[in-house]
């Protein structure tokens, strides 16, 4: 990434991570960026920093614009290590007069870096500081997606620094959404939402309402990962967030399964065909070849999930346990579910899956189909019945 002036005297100075493929369990096949922004005015402010290993990228970009020691203010919108890992070193070099953060940010910074001596200045929603011609206003966004999270806004530029909100894990030298030739952009934005923010959808909803209520005018959204939204693309991403936080979905159903000796797989195929016959869009997602975070992306706009697992030693298969633990944490709503699977003796997998779904209040469209060892034709009929129950439940949701 090179330095880019995104508004007069506001510069993008962060780092591109072309190589990361696993972001705490989220597959980042396109890499990512750690964005940081410099505002040059009578007072010079740096908004967010980068992951520890990218400290030199940030310093290299900063020195193109300013002697880093001349930076007066550091604004920490979010304390997670991908945006703060380089803080101890950066603080030593720039020695800012003030470090702005939320109340929870202050706590989190102390807990991460154990530095009582930094010049913390706690801010809350609506607090404004004057830099010169420009001002910056803070907006606390707790649990979007950490307790410390906040946004920073420059009213003169209608520019919102949105921390992890509206981000996407995409490495690119292009800095704007409309410059990416890669048509994968909205998919990556959806993947980000589904894997990081789904569980906080009620908070996203409240935030969008709050932004409307505060009458904040926005013509640029600069997140801390991926490209910047400007002009029309701002509207595009905001309306996508409106859809996602309201759990708006398509007539789409996912068959998510793993199989030991192909019996559960056979059941999956029969279920998939019957769902398609019922007019639904079907995705067959074998857990051995689909990453949990890609499946989660498909969950975002699916109306139903059908989960299939053989029983291994009185439990569901480990990859299914992995997926449903992840899924449960992200607490998607407005979905119907059903489970199936083959087994050798006691066959607990279906029961265990149903219990997890009930615990997170997702209704079962069917009590589940269990088959001892290899399915016979009558078992396939049961699978078709399960599929038809799901089709009926989905049609009822529309």
């Amino acid at each position: 990434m090179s330095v880019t002036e995104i508004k007069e005297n506001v510069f993008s100075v962060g780092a591109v991570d072309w190589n990361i493929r696993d972001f705490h369990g989220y597959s980042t096949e396109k890499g990512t960026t750690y964005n940081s922004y410099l505002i040059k005015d009578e007072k010079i402010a740096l908004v967010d920093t980068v992951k520890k290993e990218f400290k030199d990228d940030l310093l290299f970009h900063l020195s193109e614009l300013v002697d880093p020691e001349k930076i007066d203010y550091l604004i920490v919108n979010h304390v997670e290590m991908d945006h703060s890992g380089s803080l101890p070193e950066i603080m030593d070099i720039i020695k800012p007069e003030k470090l702005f953060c939320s109340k929870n940010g202050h706590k989190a910074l102390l807990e991460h870096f154990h530095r009582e001596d930094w010049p913390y200045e706690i801010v809350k929603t609506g607090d404004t500081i004057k830099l010169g011609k420009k001002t910056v206003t803070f907006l606390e966004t707790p649990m979007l997606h950490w307790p410390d999270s906040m946004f920073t806004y420059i009213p003169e530029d209608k520019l919102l620094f949105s921390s992890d909100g509206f981000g996407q894990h995409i490495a690119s030298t292009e800095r704007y959404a409309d410059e990416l030739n890669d048509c994968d952009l909205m998919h990556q934005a959806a993947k980000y939402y589904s894997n990081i923010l789904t569980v906080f959808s009620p908070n996203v909803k409240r935030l969008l309402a709050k932004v409307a209520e505060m009458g904040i005018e926005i013509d640029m959204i600069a997140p801390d990962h991926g490209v910047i939204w400007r002009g029309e693309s701002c509207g595009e991403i905001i309306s996508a967030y409106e859809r996602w936080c309201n759990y708006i979905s398509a007539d789409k159903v996912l068959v998510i399964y793993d199989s030991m000796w192909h019996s559960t797989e056979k059941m999956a195929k029969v279920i998939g065909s019957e769902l398609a016959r019922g007019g639904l869009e079907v995705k067959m997602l074998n857990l051995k070849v689909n990453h949990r975070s890609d499946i989660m992306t498909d969950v975002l706009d699916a109306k139903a999930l059908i989960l299939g697992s053989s029983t291994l030693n009185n439990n569901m298969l480990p990859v299914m346990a992995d997926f449903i633990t992840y899924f449960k944490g992200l607490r998607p709503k407005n979905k119907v579910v059903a489970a199936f699977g083959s087994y050798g003796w006691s066959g607990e997998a279906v029961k265990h899956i149903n219990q997890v779904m009930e615990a997170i209040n997702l209704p079962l469209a069917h009590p589940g189909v269990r088959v001892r060892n290899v399915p016979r034709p009558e078992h396939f009929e049961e699978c078709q019945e399960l599929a038809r129950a799901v089709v009926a439940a989905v049609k009822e949701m529309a």
Partner: protein
Amino acid sequence: MAKYECPCGYIYDPEEGDAESGIEAGTAFEDLPDGWVCPQCGAAKEDFWKA
């Protein structure tokens, strides 16, 4: 009635209740149903402390 704070910073105020989760104003923290979780972060009741 006492207010209770969640590790995420959310404060349960019995005078307000929690309309989004169907909790009426005037409900004491102690009277919240067991399945109730923090509307902001999802933490359980037992993680809260007196504010």
